[in-house]
C-alpha cells in the first residue's frame, strides 16, 4: 500500500499495479508509480533524468482496456488504471525483448567492466528465459573503440538505448554523441570518429546500462564486489559535487557521483571525475628531516623519523622564531579550524596567508536550492560551463523550465543557451551593467537592453560574477548598484562572485581575515622569516629560510633535493575525513576514501599534534575535535556525530597508521 499523500486529492491518482493500490501524483509515469509501490519494472532506455522515448520496449506492461501492451516509461498514470507487470502477455514481451537484445550481444560478462553492476545482466536473470534460439551469425563490431580521450566504446555490447546520446542532447546540451547509420547497423559515434570530448563525458559511463561505454582509466582494474565505497565530495572546484570514492585495497580506482538534488543531482564533470589521480607511489608516510641546505651533503640526506620526533622537531623550529604560514585552498575546514584555534594562539607573531585563490571581493549570498526555481540568471564575466561545470547543468535545467540567461562579458560555454548576450570586454562591464540597471526602471532605446531587462522585472534572479570582475573597483560598484536596483523588482536569490577552489568558502568563514593578506613567500625571500610552514602544499624551492611542509605531495624530480627541510606527510584530501564548504555555503562532510601511505596523518591531525606540542590541548579524534572547534565556530556543529554512531571517515580502519 502506498503512503498517504500530502498533496490535495485532486492532484493524486489512484490505480492498481499487480493488485496493489497505488496513489501517486497526477502526471507520474507508470514506471515511477510502480517504483513508489515497490514494484520494479525492468527498463533500459528509460532514465529518470532524461525525456522518455519508449525505445527499448523492455518496460511493456498490460493495462486493462488497452488493446496493446504499453510502455510503462511513457505512459502517465490515470485514475482507476489496472496494470499488470506480471501477466503472461507482459512477461512474454519482457522475455522477448531480452532475447532480441541478447541475440547479438557478446557473452563476455566475465571480462566486462560492467559485470556485477549491469542492468542487462540483472534483467536477464530476473526476466530472461533459458537459452537463446539465435543460431545465426552474430554481428561483429569494434570492441575497445576509442570514442574520445576518456571513453571507450564496445560497439558489440551497445544495446542502443540512446541514453548517452540523449544525455548530451538534454543535460549539457552539447550534442557530443551521435547515432550513426540506422537500423541494425546503428552505432554510437561522433562526426570524426574519435572526437568524443565533452566536459561531461564520464556521466555516460554511469548511464550506460551495459558495459558499452567504459572509462579508459578504470578499464579492467576491478570488479564491483571488490570495491569499498566512501562518501566524499569532489575537490575539483567549489561546487561541492557529491561523490563516492571506489577503492580496492585502499587504492582509489574511480570516482562516481552520489545523488544530491541540491547540488549535483546525479552528475559530475570530467575534471572532477578523472583529473585527480591519487597514488601512493613516491609518497612519504613518516616525517622526513633534512639538514639545512648550507650544511647539507649533496644528497638531501633526508632521514625518516617517527611522528613524535618529527612533531617535536618542528615545534622546536617554530618556538620563538619568525614564522610564516601558507595555506592551500583545498585544505579541510577542520585543518583550518585547528590552525586558527589551536596553532595560531601558540604563535602570536606568525604571518599567515591563505591562498589568494580563496579570496573574493563579493562573497556569495543566498540559497543554492533557489537556483532551480530561478526565472533569470545574470552572469557577469562568469563562465559556469568551464569554471563550475556542474553549476552550468543546474542553470540549464532551470533554462529548460523557462528561465532566461543573460550573459555580460566573453561568451562562455553556455553561449548556446544564452538568451541575451552582451559580449563586452572587462573594462566595459561596468558601463554595460549600468545600462542594464537603467533599463530596469526606465524605457531603454537599446532594444537588446530592453529585452534583457524584461526578463528581470520579477521572479527569482541569480547574479553571479567572476572573482576578477568583482575585484575590479568600477565593476564592483556597478554590480552592487545593479543588484540593489534589481532587488526592487525581483527577488535576488543568489548573488556573488564564487571563488573556484574547493574550500574557499570554508576558509572565508573560518579564517577570512587571513586570505591573501601578506605575501609570506615574499617575506621569506626578503629574509624576514626564519621558518616557512606550508599547509597542503610544498614550499617554493628558492627560499633560504627553513621550510616545513605539512602536505600529501611527494617531492619529485630534480626539485626533490630542494624540497622542504621537514616534511610532515599527510593524506591526500580524498584519503582523509574532514569537511568542505561549497561556494554557496553548504557544509559537507567527507569520508576518507583511500589508504594513505603507511603512517601519513590527516592534515587536521598533524596540525593538532603540532599545536599541542606547542602548548595547545586539542582533542585528536575527529569527532571530539569537531565538538571542540564547534564551541567557537558553528560551522562544525552539524558535523558532530551523536554518541554511539561511528564518526564519518572511520570506516575500514584508515587511521591504523597512527602509533
Amino acid at each position, binding site marked *: 500500500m502506498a503512503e498517504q499523500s500530502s498533496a490535495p486529492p485532486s492532484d493524486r491518482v489512484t490505480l492498481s499495479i499487480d493488485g496493489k493500490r497505488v496513489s501517486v501524483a497526477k502526471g507520474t509515469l507508470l514506471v515511477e508509480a510502480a517504483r513508489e509501490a515497490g514494484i520494479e519494472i525492468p527498463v533500459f532506455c528509460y532514465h529518470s533524468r532524461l525525456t522518455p522515448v519508449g525505445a527499448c520496449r523492455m518496460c511493456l506492461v498490460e493495462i486493462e482496456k488497452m488493446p496493446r501492451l504499453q510502455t510503462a516509461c511513457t505512459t502517465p498514470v490515470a485514475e482507476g488504471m489496472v496494470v499488470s507487470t506480471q501477466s503472461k502477455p507482459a512477461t512474454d514481451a519482457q522475455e522477448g525483448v531480452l532475447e532480441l537484445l541478447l541475440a547479438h550481444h557478446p557473452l563476455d560478462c566475465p571480462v566486462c567492466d560492467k559485470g556485477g553492476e549491469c542492468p542487462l545482466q540483472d534483467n536477464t536473470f530476473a526476466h530472461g528465459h533459458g537459452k537463446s534460439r539465435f543460431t545465426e551469425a552474430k554481428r561483429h563490431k569494434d570492441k575497445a573503440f576509442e570514442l574520445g580521450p576518456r571513453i571507450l566504446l564496445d560497439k558489440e555490447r551497445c544495446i542502443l538505448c540512446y541514453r548517452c546520446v540523449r544525455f*548530451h542532447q538534454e543535460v549539457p546540451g*552539447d*550534442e*557530443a*554523441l*551521435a*547515432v*550513426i*547509420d*540506422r537500423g541494425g547497423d546503428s552505432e554510437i*559515434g*561522433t*562526426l*570524426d570518429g574519435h*572526437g568524443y570530448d565533452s566536459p561531461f563525458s564520464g556521466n555516460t559511463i554511469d548511464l550506460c546500462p551495459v558495459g558499452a561505454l567504459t572509462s579508459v582509466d578504470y578499464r579492467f582494474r576491478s570488479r564491483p564486489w571488490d570495491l569499498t565505497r566512501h562518501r566524499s565530495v569532489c575537490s575539483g572546484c567549489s561546487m561541492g559535487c557529491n561523490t563516492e570514492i571506489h577503492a580496492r585495497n585502499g587504492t582509489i580506482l574511480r570516482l562516481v557521483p552520489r545523488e544530491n538534488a541540491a547540488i549535483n543531482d546525479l552528475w559530475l564533470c570530467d575534471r572532477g571525475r578523472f583529473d585527480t589521480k591519487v597514488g601512493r607511489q613516491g609518497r612519504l608516510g613518516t616525517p622526513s628531516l633534512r639538514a639545512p641546505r648550507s650544511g647539507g651533503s649533496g644528497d638531501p640526506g633526508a632521514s625518516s623519523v617517527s611522528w613524535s620526533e618529527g612533531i617535536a622537531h618542528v615545534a622546536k623550529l617554530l618556538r620563538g622564531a619568525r614564522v610564516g604560514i601558507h595555506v592551500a585552498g583545498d585544505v579541510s575546514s577542520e585543518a583550518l579550524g585547528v590552525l586558527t584555534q589551536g596553532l595560531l594562539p601558540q604563535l602570536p607573531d606568525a604571518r599567515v596567508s591563505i591562498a589568494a585563490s580563496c579570496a573574493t571581493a563579493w562573497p556569495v549570498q543566498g540559497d543554492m536550492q533557489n537556483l532551480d526555481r530561478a526565472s533569470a540568471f545574470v552572469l557577469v564575466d562568469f563562465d559556469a560551463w568551464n569554471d563550475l561545470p556542474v553549476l552550468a547543468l543546474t542553470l540549464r535545467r532551470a533554462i529548460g523550465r523557462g528561465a532566461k540567461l543573460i550573459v555580460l562579458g566573453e561568451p562562455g560555454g553556455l553561449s548556446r543557451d544564452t538568451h541575451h548576450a552582451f559580449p563586452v570586454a572587462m573594462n566595459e562591464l561596468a558601463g554595460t551593467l549600468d545600462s542594464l540597471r537603467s533599463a530596469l526602471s526606465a524605457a531603454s532605446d537599446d532594444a537588446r537592453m530592453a529585452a534583457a531587462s524584461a526578463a528581470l522585472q520579477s521572479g527569482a534572479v541569480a547574479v553571479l560574477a567572476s572573482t576578477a570582475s568583482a575585484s575590479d573597483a568600477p565593476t564592483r560598484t556597478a554590480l552592487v548598484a545593479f543588484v540593489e536596483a534589481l532587488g526592487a523588482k525581483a527577488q535576488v536569490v543568489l548573488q556573488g562572485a564564487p571563488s573556484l577552489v574547493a574550500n574557499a568558502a570554508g576558509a572565508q568563514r573560518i579564517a577570512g581575515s587571513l586570505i591573501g593578506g601578506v605575501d609570506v613567500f615574499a617575506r621569506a625571500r626578503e629574509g624576514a622569516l626564519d621558518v616557512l610552514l606550508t599547509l597542503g602544499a610544498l614550499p617554493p624551492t628558492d627560499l633560504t629560510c627553513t621550510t616545513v611542509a605539512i602536505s600529501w605531495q611527494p617531492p619529485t624530480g630534480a626539485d626533490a633535493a630542494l624540497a622542504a627541510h621537514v616534511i610532515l606527510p599527510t593524506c591526500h584530501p580524498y584519503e582523509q575525513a574532514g569537511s568542505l564548504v561549497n561556494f554557496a555555503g553548504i557544509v559537507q562532510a567527507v569520508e576518507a576514501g583511500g589508504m594513505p601511505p603507511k603512517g601519513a596523518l590527516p592534515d587536521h591531525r598533524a596540525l593538532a599534534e603540532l599545536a599541542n606540542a606547542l602548548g595547545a590541548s586539542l582533542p585528536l579524534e575527529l569527532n571530539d575535535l569537531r565538538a571542540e572547534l564547534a564551541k567557537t565556530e558553528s560551522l562544525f556543529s552539524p558535523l558532530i556525530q551523536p554518541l554511539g554512531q561511528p564518526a564519518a571517515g572511520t570506516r575500514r580502519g584508515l587511521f591504523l597508521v597512527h602509533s
Partner: protein
Amino acid sequence: MLSPATRQKITDEGQRYPEKRSALLPSLKLAQGEVGWLPREVVAEVADLLGLSHQAAIEITTFYTMLRKQDPGGCVVDVCIQLPCALRGAESVYRKIAEHLGADGRIEHGHGHAVARDGSATAVATVECFGSCHRAPMCRVNDEYWEHLDVNDLDKLLARIDELAANYRARGEAAVREGGQP
C-alpha cells in the same frame, strides 16, 4: 571546401524554416550537389554554417540513403529489386549491368552493391522501391529515372552509363593535368 555560392545558399536555407535545424537536410543536399558526396569535412562545414553541432549533422547524413558517405565516382546505378520490380525481372537487369561493368553481380540477402572492376567510376547497387512499379523494372542512373527496362534491350542504358563514367574520368584527368586533385 564549399564554394561561396553554396555557402550563401546554405546560410539562406538557415533562415527559411521556423527552426534552423530544419535547414540541415536541405543544406547537406546542397553541399552534396556541389561536391558529389559528403566527406566528413563537408558535413562539419555545413553544421558550422548553420551553427549546429557536428553530431547533429552526421546523424542525419548517415541515416538517409541518398546522402552519400562515399565518393560515387562517375555514376551510381540504383536498380530496384523490391517485389514489384522483382516480379518483372529486375534481378536479371541488375546482373546484366553488373556484368557489363565487369563487376560481381551477386545479390546477397536481396542487397547487392558492386563497384566496376576498372575502378571507382561506376557503381551499381540494388535498392528498394522508387515508386515506378507500374513501369518495372526500373533503375536510376544518378538522378535520371530509367523505366520500362527490358533485359534484352539495355543498350541505351549501358551506353549512358559508359558516357557518364567516361565524362567523370575525363574530368579527373583534366583536373590532374591542371595540378589539382582528381
